[in-house]
């Protein structure tokens, strides 16, 4: 099969972006977009459809198995992890890769997502004293702890922008996790920060729900975190379904 791969490229933040199209031949339809990028970058003789040499495409990756969030990018317009996109999904063999749009481009598909970490710092996401976990909601703590900080949820969020005061689901999940075990001394400050940076800005579109590459049940965590931080109720116990 021939994959027609188009990459939105940009040498540096100061350079103009341009599209480069590469014809990539493979018989391995179980290959991921991440592996395809690795193979293209490992081939110094690679040329584009206009016969120009393809310089190494800048992108970030690490685990290649959906557990680290490094390789988030727009694939045919949808933010997702390159290691989670099999070539077999693209029946027409046309793939467009673009950097995430809500973060500043560093080069090609690499964007600077440091705002994610800065927002968690502003929210004071840490335990100032020992955690006081509620065993009944351990499943919620677990689910929230799985957040990859990849940024896909923010890309589709109609309310998030990188310099705004609303921090989006990537900020909400860590807060929701803390709220399941927060010592009394931190509660008020966290509740205030939660209202200011999460609750008030969220339009409940839940666009984040379908996009999360880790499949985190963000709606349930949102409901429970709202209950704990805004309505000051104990989170509801999750009903475990043994067959799922």
């Amino acid at each position, binding site marked *: 099969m021939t994959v027609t791969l188009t990459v939105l490229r940009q040498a540096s933040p100061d350079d103009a972006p341009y599209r480069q199209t590469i014809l990539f031949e493979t018989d391995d339809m179980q290959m991921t977009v991440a592996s395809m990028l690795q193979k293209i970058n490992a081939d110094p003789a690679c040329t584009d459809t206009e016969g120009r040499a393809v310089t190494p495409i800048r992108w970030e990756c690490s685990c290649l198995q*959906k557990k680290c969030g490094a390789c988030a990018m727009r694939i045919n317009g949808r933010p997702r992890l390159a290691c989670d996109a099999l070539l077999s999904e693209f029946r027409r063999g046309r793939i467009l890769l673009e950097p995430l749009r809500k973060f500043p481009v560093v080069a090609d598909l690499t964007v600077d997502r440091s705002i994610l970490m800065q927002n*968690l710092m502003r929210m004071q*996401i840490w*335990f*100032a004293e020992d955690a006081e976990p509620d065993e009944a909601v*351990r499943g919620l703590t677990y689910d929230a702890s799985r957040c990859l900080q990849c940024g896909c949820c923010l890309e589709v969020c109609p309310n998030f922008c990188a310099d705004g005061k609303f921090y989006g689901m990537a900020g909400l999940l860590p807060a929701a996790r803390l709220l399941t075990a927060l010592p009394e001394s931190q509660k008020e400050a966290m509740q205030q920060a939660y209202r200011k940076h999460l609750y008030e800005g969220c339009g409940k579109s839940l666009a984040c729900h379908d996009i999360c590459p880790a499949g985190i049940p963000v709606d349930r965590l949102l409901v429970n975190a709202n209950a704990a931080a805004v309505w000051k109720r104990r989170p509801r116990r999750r009903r475990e379904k043994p*067959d799922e």
Partner: protein
Amino acid sequence: MKRFLIIGAGLSGLSAAITLAERGLPCALFSLQPSERAQSVLAEGGINAALNTMHEDDSPAEHFADTVRGGCGLADPEAVRGLTEHAPEILRRLERCGVPFHMQNGTLMLRNFGGQKKKRTAYARSSTGKMIMTALIDEARKYEAAGLIHRFPHHEFLRLLLRADKSCAGVRCRDCYTGEIRDYFGAVLLCCGGMNGLFPEMTTGTTQNSGDAAAAVFMQGVPFGNPEMLQYHPTTVGISGKRCLVSEAARGEGGRLFIEKNGARWYFMEELYPELGNLMPRDVVAREMFRVRQSPGCGGQVYLDLTGLSAETWAQKLSDLREELIAYLSLDPKREPVPVKEGIHYFMGGIAVDAKHRAGLRGLYAAGECACQYHGANRLGGNSMLGALYGGKTAAETAAAEAQDAEPDCPVQEDEPLLTPADPRLILQIRDILLSGLGIVRDETTLQGALQSLAELSAARESNAREKARLCLAGAMLQAALERRESRGAHYRADFPQSDEAYRKTTVVCCENGAASVKFVPLPEEGASV
């Protein structure tokens, strides 16, 4: 002022940074990507500590004995003593940081893991590493806010800065976003992970662990220990671009290995090792898999049968493993057996350190998978995260006690030869040569052949600095495997199938003038280090 430079923000790097910060000592934490992307998030099955919550009369002494036995007598006993005695305290600390370990009625649950008769492995389904990292990133953030941990994200380590007396003065790093190269002075703690990049696509690790940092410091004269000791994990599956781990927890919870023999399922581990069965140490299981595939009447594929696990086990303990196998293999392990194969998973060898985590040069420390410590010739499942946490803490404590005021007293070299990356085709050629020599079963002929191929490859090209370093480190691994003329743990020699007491020593390899030398150094006695 004392300065501390930590290279790598995975589990060992975070542990070191937090340890320093708790003592009010500021540090710089360099990493290519944020901690959320570190290989530690991939650790699955759990972390060992003799907490004895399952009331099986477990103790740190038994944890010590199992670790030393699992490591086939090659682990530093004093270091392992510290590791196993501090393990319960480390686990309790993680609980206080909010790690959602599996609990039942207020009791921290422990599971069975390979090479250990007692339940000793604390876990959070099969994402234990991710859970621990999430909690420790919070902990580090607290100290970042307090100005004690200063992160240098998207920074690549290039090399050590050495004084004329070969002591370590600092590091040279490059900001991958801006391209800026800078020198930083202070005590250096290398926490840069295993050498996965020597075997691209063939390990369960991450692409960030390129092996370049290890190769660079090896070329600078930092001695490495036991580089021939590669852990092949018995149960991995091939996915696009890598080997994907099927956690040992799957066997801990009741998974069984079998191969088709004369038309029937042969549960070979249970027959060959009635006591521990499928939970023998990883080196033994991997070797038996290799053997049964070649035995008469057997099919070429070993399977892991998880179909007997209860619905509750899947939901409560292994849900993420099942999701992963369905996503990447379109195979539901609850309904059909998983075809598995041995894959490179862990590097027991690495930068040689003493029990206090001092590396071979003054002012240099190493911890985590990049260091050769705790695991001897074979690592027990559940000991890697423990080793990273305890190792990072110990390295930081030693550095804090020994550090001098940092002075930029090292002549700064202006040109930087390590900027040009290694040719990706050469990286694959070196990988294939290493694989030909460093398989599960090795012998003199294949190792000599691999060394010969490596020498020819090296002679046939004009290599850049990174390529030379990689060739040199690869040569050292092969040379070490050649000269260890015995079988021990992960190192199995078909031509020397027995262990030889004369080789119960650490292999120490050194790079001198671009060539590797090998010597065997007796293990330290307990209580030897100061």
